[in-house]
């Protein structure tokens, strides 16, 4: 799901996406409040695991393969802001050493692969995971987060870069399917990690109390995702008027 250099060339869009990505990272730096050693050790080690896991591409549908994103696991273990920082570090390493993703679209990738999935998983956990329903929160949050991230990426490709409209449905569909599988894998990983270290997920519990805005954000995200299949391909009113004026 990485956007590469040179695909989006509309300069204001590039500036806006990179500013959004930089803003998210700056805010995440401010919000990461754990001690330095704790933060860096866990984020660095789990980030390396996610980087390795992203290398495993599996065929999903004919003509397309997918890999896990890892934002769900990181969010549940590290909390949303450290998870965003760690995902940003993963994206930087991929862009610099592998040209997977790109330097000019790093901000876009931070928004679609780090911020949206991490915050969606966090919102889902806040809304659902009271007590032991962490697996359910992982599955739903990862699936929803992947679909929303893909929807934003597809919107950029279709409405700004000029990709055909079917790209939107294709990308969102494939990533949603991948998200469901990743969600189940994340739930399995969470249960394994809980067996190994029962206190591991308590570190982020204090931040999992849902502020009302997060619940509303989650509800909004679900509604947007539900409306995507009903999007009309007909021109809007302004486009109709402009077309008639042209005649």
């Amino acid at each position, binding site marked *: 799901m*990485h*956007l*590469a*250099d*040179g*695909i989006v*060339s509309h*300069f204001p869009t590039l500036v806006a996406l990179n500013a959004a990505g930089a803003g998210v*990272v*700056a805010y995440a*730096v401010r919000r990461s409040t754990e*001690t*330095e*050693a*704790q*933060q*860096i*050790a*866990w*984020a*660095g*080690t*789990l*980030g*390396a*695991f996610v*980087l*390795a*896991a992203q*290398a*495993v591409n599996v065929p999903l549908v004919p003509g*397309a393969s997918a890999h896990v994103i890892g934002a769900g696991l990181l969010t549940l273990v590290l909390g949303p802001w450290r998870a965003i*920082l*760690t995902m*940003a*570090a993963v994206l*930087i*390493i991929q*862009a*610099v*050493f*592998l*040209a*997977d993703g*790109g*330097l*000019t679209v790093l901000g876009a990738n931070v928004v679609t692969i780090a911020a949206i999935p991490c915050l969606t998983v966090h919102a889902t956990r806040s809304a659902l995971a009271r007590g032991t329903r962490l697996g359910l929160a992982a599955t739903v949050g990862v699936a929803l987060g992947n679909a929303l991230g893909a929807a934003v990426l597809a919107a950029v*490709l279709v409405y700004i870069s*000029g*990709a*055909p409209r*079917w*790209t939107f449905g294709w990308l969102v569909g494939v990533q949603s399917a991948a998200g469901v599988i990743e969600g189940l*894998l994340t739930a*399995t*990983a969470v249960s*394994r*990690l809980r067996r*190994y*270290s029962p206190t591991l997920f308590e570190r982020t519990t204090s931040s999992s109390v849902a502020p009302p805005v997060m619940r509303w954000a989650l509800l909004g995200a679900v509604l947007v995702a539900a409306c995507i299949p009903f999007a009309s391909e007909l021109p809007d009113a302004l486009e109709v008027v402009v077309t008639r004026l042209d005649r």
Partner: protein
Amino acid sequence: MNARAFDGTNARPDSWLSRITTAPGRLLCCIALVIGIATCPLSGAGTLASAILFGAAAIAIAPAPRPFLRRLAYASLVVVALVGPFYFSVGASAALARGGRALLASATALCFAATLKPTELGPAMRGIGVPAKLSSIISVMMRQLTQLGEEGRRLLLARKLRGATGMIGPDVLASLLVRSSRRAEKLELALTLRGSAATGAIAMTAADRAAAASCALAAIATQLIVRAVH
């Protein structure tokens, strides 16, 4: 993903550019040139200008051909997947031009990647002003990645000796995850005992600033010329 990209064996510290600049300078040069190429107008002149910028980077760095081409082949798969749909909306030639531009940008980034040792990335990021929290995570990640690769290889070998196939599956990933958690606990203790977890920065030199400014000027000049011709 190419695991050898992270073991440092592909780095070219003997290149002309590596001798006169340090890692943060080269990183800034890379960013300037890649922005220049990725935002070039899609035209014959734009493609030619992008190719010239890439050519200049390739001559200055002279990356080892085999690892460079291996990584470029991987990057080109991503480019083809992204550019493919444009064939149906903008036509073959425009899609090809877009793909060519994306590939040249990726190739330029990979040229510069060949001048960086994995352990240099974190300090280099810190040197260009990236927050310490982020650059330290990058440094730890690069060190842990090598160990993770070794553990993964040992795990696969052990499975093979027990008669299983050498494929990476969810069980292998789960084992690696638990081992990663154990390592994170040990590392957390070690960093706490050491007193500081922050990565040092590689300071930028005058040569770095000159090189970065030259690359930025080259990118801007190319853009202006191409847009004038366009």
